[in-house]
């Protein structure tokens, strides 16, 4: 058995004291762990210190720049990007180690089922590129940062656990904050909120989330995700019209 390439795990953090330890434990198998922290004000750093090889402090501007900075410091030939609220399961760990023994692609997508109201919604899951050969890999995009890698991309079978859900209220307020962000982007492009946006966009989003993606199979949590998604879209256009009125 020849020696597998080395693996660096990169975790961006900001005030993650409640989450970080389990995340770190789940990637203890990596050759190197790098934390890129945007000056956490809680116990994140002291909790993480015993587990990590390198902590980089950087003022947050966007996720792409943050992760690209950490990438410069990575010593591994392969890199796995992990968020503090994500956990690599035992089976995913095995699969990663096996895959790296003899990689046939330059990057691998991992499946993230949506954790919501204390259960996983299998109708809402995404394949996201997270494991890449470091050579030529980088993030781009200010909002939805996207990992780019040189060469072909495969998909791993096992799932990543992602604990986004804290409670319904913070889930909704997160969407509301995000709506400002999106509204500002539309505003910068000179877009205006029309009646069509108000009536159709939320409905489309609901339809997509509930019917096309199969949210209806997930009972009330599936219905809630779809409705909150639609509400987030609605808020985006409300906030766009507020920006045009210079109101909050």
């Amino acid at each position, binding site marked *: 058995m020849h020696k597998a390439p080395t693996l660096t795990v990169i975790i961006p953090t900001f005030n993650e004291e409640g989450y970080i330890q389990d995340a770190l434990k789940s990637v203890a198998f990596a050759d190197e762990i790098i934390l890129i922290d945007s000056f956490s004000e809680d116990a994140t750093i002291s909790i993480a210190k015993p587990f990590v090889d390198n902590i980089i402090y950087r003022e947050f501007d966007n996720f792409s720049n943050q992760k690209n900075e950490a990438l410069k410091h990575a010593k591994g030939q392969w890199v796995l990007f992990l968020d503090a609220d994500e956990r690599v399961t035992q089976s995913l760990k095995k699969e990663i180690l096996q895959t790296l023994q003899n990689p046939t692609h330059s990057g691998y997508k991992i499946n993230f089922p949506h954790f919501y109201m204390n259960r996983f919604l299998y109708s809402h899951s995404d394949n996201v590129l997270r494991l890449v050969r470091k050579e030529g890999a980088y993030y781009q995009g200010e909002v939805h940062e996207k990992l780019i890698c040189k060469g072909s991309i495969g998909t791993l079978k096992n799932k990543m656990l992602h604990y986004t859900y804290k409670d319904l*209220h913070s889930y909704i307020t997160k969407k509301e904050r995000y709506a400002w962000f999106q509204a500002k982007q539309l505003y910068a492009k000179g877009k205006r909120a029309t009646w069509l946006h*108000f009536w159709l966009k939320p409905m489309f989003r609901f339809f997509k989330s509930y019917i096309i993606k199969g949210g209806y199979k997930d009972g*009330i949590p599936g*219905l809630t995700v779809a409705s909150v998604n639609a*509400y987030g879209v*609605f808020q985006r256009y409300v906030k766009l019209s507020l920006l045009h009125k210079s109101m909050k």
Partner: protein
Amino acid sequence: MKNQTKISAVIITLNEQKALPAFLESLWFAHEIIVLDSYSTDNTVVVAKENKKVKVFERTFDDFSSQKNAAISKASHDWIVFFDPDEKITKQLSQEIINTLKDPKAIAYYVKREFYFMGKKIKFSGLQNDHVIRLFNKNYCSYNQNLVHEVMQANGGTATLKNKLPHYSYSSFDNYTAKMHHYSALKAKMLYKKGVQPKLYHFFFRPWWRFANQYFFKLGILDGKRGFILAYVSAFSVFKRYVNLWLLYRNIK
């Protein structure tokens, strides 16, 4: 003002330091002002005490009815005015209150509110009939036990004052929706206490019904985009109420 009937102004507060000085000033016609604060984290209490008529009390907030009734119980006089800090008591209205109390014909008086949303007066959307009791004799009136949308119960004749009450509850959209979220959570608790089980029609029918009722039947459509926005937000908060209820039964947050 010698023979004026004594009036106690009563308010409940939570982090109102900004609006408070001007609001307390607008209660110039009251003989004492009772401020019942639910442990504000800003300077509400300090600011309140700067006004000489003010007596400050503190109480942990549980629900609006209990909080308001507790505030009323601190008042020394029979006649109470109970406004919210986001309501604007105009000179005309305060004069009308003084005149009315010279010879009161009722034990409680309604005021018609004018609701401002996103910088504009909302004329329809069900708010055309928004009237609330703001002046009453405490011996005949108290708030009912509703956790939200507490209603004043008056045992006796009521009347309506002529002057309108502008209601500037809108400070920002996020603030508005935060209030709606607060209400929907409280309402869910109320239903849970009553043992109401969430049913499918609650999720699929009630929000649409709320939207249609407010936007079409109550003519929100005539309030333009603001009417649509108000109807959507209230429909969503109805939906959220039942999700909250569903979560309560499962012990999930």
